[in-house]
Structures are given as C-alpha cells and as structure tokens.
C-alpha cells in the first residue's frame, strides 16, 4: 500500500489550464474521493496520478519515489474505469489474468490469484463467460477483480458506478466499502455524486475548475464548508443561501427585510446559509422571514417543502417522516438563529 503525493501538479491542454497548482497527500490505506461537477478536473487529476496523462508541471510521488515520468503499469497502480473497459473478446478469466500474463507471472500463480479474487467477488460461476454475457453489476465486479489480482499499491476508480441503475449503485457502493475494509488498500475514487463521496470517503477532495476547494472528512465538509461552492455542492438538497447586508446587529436581506439578532454581525458578512434540516418553520407571521409553500415532496422517510420567500427566491426545508400539517399554498414563517447560520464573505469564503 502507498502514500501518494502530488506536488505543484499542473495540467494544461494547449492554452487551457485544466488543473491549477495542486498539492495533495494521500495517506497509506486512505479512501480519498475526488468530487466535483463536470469539467472540474477530477478525472484529469486521477489520470495524472495513474500516469495516463503527463503533468505539464509538478511531480507525482509514490512512497517518496518520483513516478512522474513512469507509465501506469510501472507505477504499480490499478484502475477501474467508468465503462469497465473489459476486453470484449476475452473471457472473465482472461480479462483478469491479462495483466499478470503481461508481467510474465507463472501460470500457477496466475490461476491461484484469479481463482482467489473470483472467490472474494463471487465470480466463480462466470469465469468462462465473455463480458457481453454478464449483467452490469457482474461486469463491474470483473473490472474490480481485474484491478485486485495485480495486487497494486493503490486502486484508482473513475466514476465506476455511473453506468449502474440506482438500486445496483447502492449495492455496489456497499461492496466497495467492504472491499476497502478487507484490503486496507489506498483508494482514490472519482465521482460527481456527492452521496457516494459522503458515504465512502475517509477524505474528500472537492474540486472546481481545476482547483481544490477543500479537503476534509465528509462531516467537516458538511458542517464547515470552506466556501460557498463546497457549501452548495455537498449536501442534497443543497444548502439554502441568502444574500445579506450587515447593519449593526441586524441583517438586511435583498428584498429589504430586516432581521435583528441582538448580537454584532461581522461587517464582511455577505451571505448566510442553512441546511434544509436546519430550517426553522414557524406559523405565518412569526420568525424573521415570511414565505409561501410552493411545492411539497413526500419521500416517506422525509418531507421536503420548497418555500418561496418572495424576492429572496426559494428555500428548501426538510422534515423527518411524513409531515401532514404542511400543504401547498400554506403561508409560513422562517426563523433564523445567527450562531447556527453558515456565514460567508462577498467572495464566498467562510467566515469563522
């Protein structure tokens, strides 16, 4: 297993910089997830670690050794691709043994490794089938098996669950979590799905436009987002954010509404945020802001109410269970507690 380090790594395609200066250390045995919207550079960063892209500048180190100019196989890494990338004309066994044959391992060892991994991943009945005869989940397991047999120093996953249906995605997420527990391997995982990030990661690296926005545990990102981007990317539904102007101990909202908290507010405060579950819904006429329920979504386990606040836009409130005393068109009040609000400056940076 390995410590992976990126030092001042940059990547440009022509004049376009897709990865700015990135410095990152991934500890031995950690499960680190790169998350971000499309075009954020997360897959490019993973490919730089893998050696499938050449860094324009900077270094990639594995256990202190500079591997920047080495190819993927020489870095002793394995990768699971979004499309699985199984060799379609080869059987499952041949897919899994291909890398070992290239490395000229003895036949007996190849067979032992493939059989062992097939046992772990429950692929024993499928070894003689070709990928086209497998379901999506089975193909995914073959792709993971192909990565495991090479006994790499780290595993790289590039959106491996994107092509699966929702139910299978949940199942495979649990399988990957168990795999990490079992192998204790360093894993770098790329996804745009922040639910995967929150449930699987030891550490999350949030990327936007080629720059790292924040590195932290899932709870650190959820509870203390470093900026507005992280605040609204992590968490579903996303954080409610309102533009404000401080006025002594009060906040003036964009529609002129005033909320007085009796405590000084930071003069650089420009945005306040609260998670949907932190929204305090009150009877109409009470609270700091007034609104009307525009949409109610009932999931059984939760009830989401989308509330129009007039000129301030729409906020989302989350209530556990099936809440019966909320309905379309109902006027409600919204209460705010200053020290529970997430506070951001004009340029979106968190105020401590």
């Amino acid at each position, binding site marked *: 297993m390995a410590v992976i380090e990126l030092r001042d790594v940059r990547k440009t395609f022509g004049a376009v910089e897709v990865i700015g200066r990135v410095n990152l250390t991934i500890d031995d045995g950690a499960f680190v997830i790169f998350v971000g919207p499309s075009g954020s550079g997360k897959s490019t960063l993973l490919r730089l670690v*893998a050696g*499938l892209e050449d860094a324009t500048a900077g270094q990639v180190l594995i256990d202190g050794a500079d591997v920047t100019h080495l*190819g*993927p*196989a*020489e870095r002793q*890494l*394995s*990768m699971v*691709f*979004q*499309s699985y*990338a*199984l*060799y*379609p*004309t*080869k059987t499952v066994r041949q897919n899994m043994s*291909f*890398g070992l044959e*290239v*490395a000229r391992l003895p036949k007996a060892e190849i067979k032992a490794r493939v059989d062992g991994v097939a046992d772990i991943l429950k692929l024993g009945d499928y070894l003689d089938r070709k990928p086209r005869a497998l379901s999506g989940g089975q193909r995914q397991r073959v792709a993971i098996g*192909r990565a495991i047999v*090479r006994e790499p120093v780290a595993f790289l996953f590039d959106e491996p669950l994107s092509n699966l249906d929702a139910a299978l995605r949940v199942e495979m997420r649990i399988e990957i979590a168990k795999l990490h527990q079992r192998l204790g391997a360093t894993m770098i995982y790329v996804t745009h799905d922040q639910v995967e990030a929150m449930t699987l990661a030891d550490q999350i690296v949030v990327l936007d436009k080629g720059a790292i926005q924040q590195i932290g545990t899932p709870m650190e990102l959820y509870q203390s987002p470093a900026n507005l981007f992280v605040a609204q990317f992590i968490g579903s539904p996303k954080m409610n954010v309102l533009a404000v102007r401080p006025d002594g101990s009060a906040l003036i909202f964009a529609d002129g509404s005033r909320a007085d908290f009796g405590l000084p507010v930071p003069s650089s405060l420009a945005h306040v945020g609260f998670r949907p579950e932190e929204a305090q819904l009150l009877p109409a006429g009470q609270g700091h802001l007034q609104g009307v329920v525009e949409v109610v979504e009932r999931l059984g386990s939760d009830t989401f109410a989308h509330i129009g606040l007039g000129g301030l836009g729409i906020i989302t409130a989350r209530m556990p269970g099936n809440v019966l005393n909320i309905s379309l068109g109902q006027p409600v009040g919204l209460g705010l507690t200053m020290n529970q609000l997430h506070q951001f400056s004009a340029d979106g940076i968190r105020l401590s």
Partner: protein
Amino acid sequence: MSIVGKSATSAKFRRNRWLLTAILSLYFIYTFMPLFYVITAATKSNQDLFSTFGLWLAEDFQLWENLKTLFTIQDGIFLKWMANTAYYSSVSAIGAALFATFAGYAFAKYSFFGKKLMLALVLGAVMIPQTALVIPMFLMLSNLGLTNTSLAVILPSLVFPPGVFLMWAYIDDAISNELIEAGRVDGAGEFHIFSSIAFRMLMPGFATVLILAFVASWNNYFLPLVMLIKPDMFPITVGLAQLYSTAISGTGGVLLFTVVMTGALVSIVPVIAAFLLMQRFWQGGLGAGGVKA
C-alpha cells in the same frame, strides 16, 4: 387538435413506394444488363453471337464448348491468368487491409506530430484516380528493376487510401479509448494492445476493407498492363484484353470473341463468391458506427 402522421397504408406512402421501386428497378436493369449480356453471350457460338438478339439465349447452347475452348486455348493460359489474378489479389488485399488497419488505428487512437497533414494527404490520395499514378509508378519501379515481376502489381496495390479512411472512421467508433488505457494500466505495450485486444474487435471493418481491396485488385487492368510484359504473368483482365485485341485484328480467328465473353463470365464468379461469403462481415463493417452501442 390531434397530430396526424403518414401511415404505411396511406395513398401517398404507397405512391411514393411504387415510385421508389420503379426507379430502383430501372437502376437494377441498367446495372445488370451488361452482366446479363455476358451470361447469354457465353452460351452462344460465335455465329449466334453476332446474329441473334444479344439479351437472350440462342437455340444452340454452347456454354460447355466455350468453357472447354477457354481452358485449353494457348496451352491453358487462362488458368494461369486466373491463378495470377488470385495470387495478386489475395496478397494485395491482405496487405492493403493490414496496412489500412495499422494506419487507421494510428489516426484514430494516437496524437502525433504531423497527424493532420498526413490525414489530409491520405484523404487527398483518395481523390486521385489510380490511373493517373500508374505511369509515375512504372518509372519508379523500373528504376528499382521490379517491372515485369509480381511485386510490380502487388506493391502499388498495398496502398489503399479509401481503406485507411474507412478503418479510421470504423476504429474511432469501435474501439473506446478506455479499452486501450485499460491495456496500458495492465502493462501491455502498444502493439500488444493492438494485436491482443483491438484487432479482434476490428474484424468487420477489416473484412470490409479486405473485400474492397480484393475486388479493386481483381478488376485492375491498367496497372498490370503497364507493369507486365510476359503473357504468363498477366492477370485475367490483361489476358482477356489481349485475346480481344487478337480477335479484333483478325489474327486469332473469329472464335476468340466467344472465348473472351466466356472468360469474362468465369472471371467474375470468384468475386461474386467472395462477396457472398464475406457478406455478413462487410455489411456489418459498412454499417458500424451508425448506432452507438
């Protein structure tokens, strides 16, 4: 208000379908007529060839006699010509398909200095008629001392720009970049990835280029005409043309016309057979890429 679309039973659809069928029938007749003439001509005696209606059989069915004459004339040289044609076409087709596959793979899957220029040159070469290149090629091969050898016919035929273009488009769609990257992560070199993973996936495209190159080489007339002098090295196209020249000049006897027609008929049989045998490959190859899997 409901939205009304055309159905298969509507009068306009039926009218359009009949019109299309009529146009295609005319095209079919136009295409098939020369072939039909060859078939009927090969069954006639030389006298009937000039005295009966060209597009129908004569009373006297002479196909077997014509075949016997064809395969015995000039000590059985027609068989030699067929063997030459099969040899030139097979080697040229396999070579052209392989080179087109290599080139198409490189264009589709790699970035390299000069790629755009080389691709433009290949596309430009598609537009140059082969006939225009034969004389410069003759001069080049003559300087190398290769004229009047089989290489003089085979070497130029190994270059098949339409095949490169076809394979480039096919491979771009058929082989995902992730598949190649998976091979690289597994430690395979580029040629190993190509031979062990990619090539088997390219068989429909390869077969398509193979059959197209085979037919182009089988039907090639001007190149072997310029490059070859010895009659026993001729392919069928040049050999039959020589027989026809002899027939017209009157030095070989009037019989030669029927021999030429019978030879033309025999010469297309292997090509038709090859097309039918490879049909499932080349239809798949031509259609690939139309729908993303």
